[in-house]
């Protein structure tokens, strides 16, 4: 079985982005970029399934600017086998990404697609579910545990109030939540090896997908700020203030 893992190049988790003064977007020039953290978890899970003998090959795909090749290299250095880079500049919305991934799935025939549950830039959380819909296949979102059992996959999901486990017929789509695993660091020898692993270059047009955005961004603004309040001297003073405000 092959496993496909789509990965996205995003602003690094630790960077606090700034909104541009003219409201045209967020300033990401000269900002550190990295693989979306949930996608790292997805790559790790695919590698663990391969190491457990449940899969033969892990393919990584990224849709984005030319520099997304670096993101693919990161996954190859972790241990993925090969990459597919679909070059597209500008915003590619989840629906268009899902359409491109559908074509990659048709060509490669993976038994499992593992994605991050959301990208930490647009916070949409749509691509996995959309891909499952377009393929007419079952989905296991927000996964905290993935177990392959014959022709099925058991997915334990993080849901409001606890966990639930679903049994999905393969091929299936899984999206990774935070606690599915802890991704490994790439070792230096593996980083060197990754440089020789193949990355196939494609364009959306190769897959016949129109990536024109459906949504128009009217403006981007700073969220309403909060002002720092007062540091109080005692618990009694705090309880008094809260009673005054009518919240307790």
């Amino acid at each position: 079985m092959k496993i496909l893992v789509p990965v996205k190049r995003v602003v690094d988790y630790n960077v606090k982005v700034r909104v541009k003064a003219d409201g045209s977007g967020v300033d990401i020039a000269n900002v550190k970029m990295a693989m979306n953290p949930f996608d790292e978890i997805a790559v790790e899970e695919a590698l663990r399934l391969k190491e457990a003998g449940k899969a033969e090959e892990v393919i990584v795909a990224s849709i984005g600017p030319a520099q997304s090749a670096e993101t693919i290299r990161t996954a190859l250095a972790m241990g993925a086998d090969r990459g597919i880079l679909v070059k597209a500049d500008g915003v590619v919305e989840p629906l268009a990404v899902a359409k491109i991934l559908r074509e990659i799935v048709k060509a490669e025939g993976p038994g499992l697609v593992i994605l991050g549950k959301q990208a930490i830039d647009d916070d949409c959380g749509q691509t996995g579910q959309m891909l499952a819909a377009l393929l007419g296949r079952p989905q296991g979102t927000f996964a905290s545990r993935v177990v392959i059992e014959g022709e099925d996959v058991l997915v334990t999901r993080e849901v409001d109030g606890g966990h639930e486990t679903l049994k999905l017929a393969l091929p299936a789509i899984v999206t990774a939540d935070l606690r599915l695993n802890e991704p490994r660091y790439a070792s230096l020898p593996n980083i060197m090896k990754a440089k020789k692993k193949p990355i196939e270059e494609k364009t959306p047009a190769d897959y016949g997908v129109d990536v024109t955005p459906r949504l128009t961004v009217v403006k981007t603004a700073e969220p309403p700020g909060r002002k720092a309040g007062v540091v109080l001297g005692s618990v009694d003073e705090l309880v008094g203030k809260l009673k005054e405000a009518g919240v307790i």
Partner: protein
Amino acid sequence: MTTLLIADHLNTALRDATAKALTAAKALGGGIHVLVAGKDCRAAAEAAAKLDGVTKVLLADDASLDHQLAEPMAALIVSLAGSYDAFVAPATTDGKNIMPRVAALLDVMQLSDVSAILSPDTFERPIYAGNAIQTVQSADPKKVVTVRTASFKAAGEGGTAAPVETVALPAADSTSAFVGAEIAKSDRPELAGAKIVISGGRAFQSAENFRKYIEPVADKLGAAIGASRAAVDAGYAPNDYQVGQTGKIVAPELYIACGISGAIQHLAGMKDSRIIVAINKDSEAPIFQVADYGLVGDVFQILPEMEKAL
């Protein structure tokens, strides 16, 4: 224009998130029908019928919908899609799971986690963990929207109950099945809808301490309990307690952050609370920059004092 609101419910009752998403749906204008899909869920449908602004309730009551899995839910919603211009659901784990599947089947781009509706086609939504607010306009013929419930007040009950109609189900999908669930039972209010939330962070050092110091104060206040990602990752608190960008987004009347430094990912989940209290040993902790009231000190000392003072 008619909107289909997808109810989040427990079969026997509606979740508060539904009434909040209803307020958002009202902002779109036009009639609002509510879909209550589940098993033995007539009680939830009747509760939905009483909500103010609902003009009709569609009831889909079938064993295949018991756990509201995405595959049968999306197929059902799409089978009803011809009559509707917009589809709204609260951004709960069910809404987030089901709605993008609906959007893709309808070939439209979903508007995720919207925090304000400016007009029937223009929405505000947070991006980058709430560090920026984007205003987006959709040209798609049908709108699929999930709603950040913390941004909307719950709709109340109306004068007369709307009619409840049973709907036909599309052909069954057998690719997914429910195996089991571990849902924590608690007498405390649900985190996402609670009026008071008290959250703990890494400072508690163990699961025992987390319970021992947070629970008595939570009980006195009738508060829900939350946690920072650090506390959850360290095993001090269960996963579903996590407040933040990737956990639950809350906006209670009062949020008490205990031993939480205030990473941007945590702030993203609670900074819309009306009053924020921070209790932390480190007076330089970023949480104090968003707190209305702060106490600098040890949570192990302050929380027992607080329990006595309440």
